[in-house]
């Protein structure tokens, strides 16, 4: 019924979709799995019209279609239930359901609210949700909101001739177990109204619900399995299976770390985000936190940096228990932070190279509030040479540097300030291969210099390649720690198995 034929999509430096064939039949539930960055979200965006394929075609019942935007896709019956919910919480349920389509209830320029409520009740009936349509959305639970969202998409039924295809992006991530069961039952019941594409990290759920599962890796569909023949282990191998290039991650340069403990977590817990986390980060060690999005990795980073105070347990930095948690604690504790959102949190666009580098240590480059700019420039030049930062001069606006060079400036900022604990949050995200290799070199070099590094990696290969120690976190709980350097590197499969 709905088909993608050899769809290709390029982004600069990335071949995001490689000749993807995808098909879904009437009333079918199709699963889509893959690692972060495997191309799932790009594929979804192509399906619901947010991206246009560079090559290949989309056909519905044999007719070729081309969507310029999601609205056009919707008019062909393609609906999307978003992971980060798209309801406007200060509007009522019925206003949300008919957002953008209120005109059908307007007579003489006035909205007929009772008519809209009646129609909304009918939509909510499809998802078996018995609530007053005039309820303000903010008052609903997450599970209820998800159903409202589904009901909203199902309004396509009345608006569109032909069949519906509904994408569910990580629909279970906000649901409790029994809510998941209810949702699955509902989706199965709804297959008489629509087909579903179900995207999730949770392999067991995907297999439970789906008739067929597409496995993606590196922008390509590597396997299609049917429910009958599915095998979790086999799928996981397909998802991650690739020979890891030892050279790529500079593994031969990896050295043992010292015994000196820089950061110590002793049974640290914070609310629902993570529980009873314990580890030691040593001088020269690369410690990698592995887990799916929302597993608690980032929350642990924030606590190390001193932003969030844990509820229980002790955090020590170089033997001293940390008592103060506030915005500047990280800098005071000598911790450098290389954030995921480089453009927002990493560099100040509009400030030049040396201004960015000395931002966290201005007291060292000023006297009585007056800056010693010539010293700043010397420092910047030194680090430009040392890290090979490609910039015409020290006056260049950092906003105009390439991503890899921006990342080097951020690292130089912390290293020049003498930080010996560095937190890397997806340091290679959005970088091309050459720039990634530069980052790996820098990780090794820092490690040699005795810097302790906590890494949240972009891919599992990266984690395995770079880390001495890997801690797998799932739902805020440390599943297992691998001492990859001393005990031998874990396999991808070992990790994935713990993650999901």
């Amino acid at each position, binding site marked *: 019924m709905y088909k993608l034929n050899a769809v290709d999509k390029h982004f600069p430096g990335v071949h995001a979709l490689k000749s993807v064939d995808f098909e879904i039949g009437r009333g079918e539930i199709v699963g889509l799995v893959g690692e972060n960055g495997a191309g799932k979200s790009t594929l979804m965006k192509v399906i619901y019209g947010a991206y246009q394929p560079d090559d290949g075609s989309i056909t519905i019942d044999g007719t070729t279609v081309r969507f310029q935007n999601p609205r056009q896709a919707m008019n062909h019956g393609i609906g999307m239930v978003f992971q980060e919910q798209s309801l406007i919480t200060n509007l009522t349920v019925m206003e949300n359901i008919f957002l953008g389509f209120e005109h059908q209830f307007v007579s003489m320029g006035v909205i007929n609210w009772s008519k809209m409520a009646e129609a909304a009740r009918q939509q909510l009936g499809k998802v078996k949700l018995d609530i007053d349509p005039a309820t303000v959305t903010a008052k609903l639970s997450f599970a209820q909101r998800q159903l409202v969202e589904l009901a909203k998409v199902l309004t396509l039924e009345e608006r569109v001739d032909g069949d519906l295809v509904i994408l569910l992006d990580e629909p279970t991530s906000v649901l409790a177990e029994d809510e998941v069961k209810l949702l699955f039952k509902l989706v199965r019941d709804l297959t008489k109204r629509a087909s579903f594409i179900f995207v999730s990290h949770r392999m067991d759920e995907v297999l439970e619900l789906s008739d067929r599962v597409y496995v993606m890796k590196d922008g390509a569909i590597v396997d299609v399995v049917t429910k009958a023949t599915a095998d979790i282990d086999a799928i996981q191998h397909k998802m991650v299976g690739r020979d890891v290039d030892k050279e790529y991650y500079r593994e031969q340069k990896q050295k043992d770390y010292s015994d000196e403990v820089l950061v110590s977590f002793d049974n640290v817990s914070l609310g629902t985000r993570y529980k009873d986390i314990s580890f030691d980060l040593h001088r020269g060690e690369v410690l990698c936190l592995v887990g799916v999005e929302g597993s608690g990795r980032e929350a642990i980073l924030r606590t190390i940096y001193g932003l969030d105070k844990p509820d229980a347990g002790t955090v020590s930095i170089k033997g001293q228990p940390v008592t103060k948690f506030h915005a500047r604690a990280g800098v005071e504790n000598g911790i450098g932070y290389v954030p995921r959102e480089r453009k927002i949190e990493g560099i*100040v666009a509009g400030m030049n190279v040396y201004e960015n580098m000395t931002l966290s240590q201005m007291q060292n480059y000023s006297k009585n509030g007056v800056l010693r700019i010539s010293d700043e420039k010397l420092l910047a030049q030194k680090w430009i040479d040392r890290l090979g930062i490609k910039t015409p001069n020290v006056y260049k606006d950092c906003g105009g540097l*390439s991503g890899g060079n921006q990342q080097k400036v951020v690292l130089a900022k912390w290293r020049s300030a003498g930080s010996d604990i560095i937190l890397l949050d997806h340091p290679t995200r959005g*970088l*091309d291969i050459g720039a990634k290799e530069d980052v790996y070199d820098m990780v090794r070099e820092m490690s040699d210099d005795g810097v302790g590094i906590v890494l949240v990696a972009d891919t599992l290969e990266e984690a395995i390649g770079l880390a001495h120690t890997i801690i797998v976190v799932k739902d805020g709980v440390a599943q297992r720690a691998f001492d990859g350097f001393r005990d031998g590197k874990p396999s991808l499969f070992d990790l994935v198995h713990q993650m999901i």
Partner: protein
Amino acid sequence: MALSDTTSSLAGAPGSGIYREAIVKWAPLLVLLVLIAFFAIMEPRFLSVRNFARIGISSAPALMVAIGVTFIIIMGSIDLSMEGTVSVSAILFAFAFLALGGTLASWAWLAVPMALIAGGFIGFLNGLIHIKLKIPSFMASLAMGFVGTGFALLLTGGDRIRIEDELFRSLLTVRWLNFPIMCYVALLFVLIAWFIQSRTTLGRNFYAVGGGEELAHASGLNVNRVRLMGFMLAGIFYAVGALLAVGRIGIAETATGNNFMFVSITSVVVGGTALWGGIGGVWNTVVGVLIVNVINNGMVVIGLPGWLQDGVLGLLVIAAVVLSTDRKSVSFVK
């Protein structure tokens, strides 16, 4: 090209980027020169030293106020208290000046630092309200501006205070190289502001806070303290503007602050300082103030009818903003 970042590589080839950067940087000055050329062609008398001195006189007080608010805007905040602050500073100066002897040759010179302290204090209150009560800066400062205007009215009861001291009035009446002293005073403070902007940690911090508040936090900056200092500094510059305004017309009154909000904010924006913070600076504001005052002066000089002037000023300001700011660098315009 080692770009992989989607946004930056989509922005175009590096060559066009540099070209564009240069245009954005110099556009305000280009706009100013074009305006001057235009008015000079329409009326040759426009291009006389005496007229430039007149433009200098009308620009000097507004320039001080605009520079004050430039620091705030670079931080990504906004300060709308200038009218109240200027009025209060001017009136307190006038009261103190007359009470202490009424001439700069006596202890009355103390009224000058007192006015600056008063301006700084109002700015300090502004910042405190903004930071401690977590009220958006535009609201906090707008309210403080009204308080200031009200306080000024309370002080004067609606009266004007004349400052007739010849020594003080020499700001206007004595000329060096055809320009009155107030122009040189304004230039001195421009240089001070430039020094603060480019050579001090405070100036650097303004840009850091405006360029990325989270990052500034993460880099160990005390952002609230930077904010507070910014508002104080702005208040001091408003007070300098108040002193020049009093020097220019010899009168301190509640109305001394009138119209400074529109002129200063307009000038800052026309000069190419971005309202979302982080971009621009003192020299942009100098050019912006000159653009606004050249337009004002030029319209009368070429004999544009009075009823047309407000409309034309508005249109020219929009045109100048279009030409002199890099609107592509923001995803949306509030």
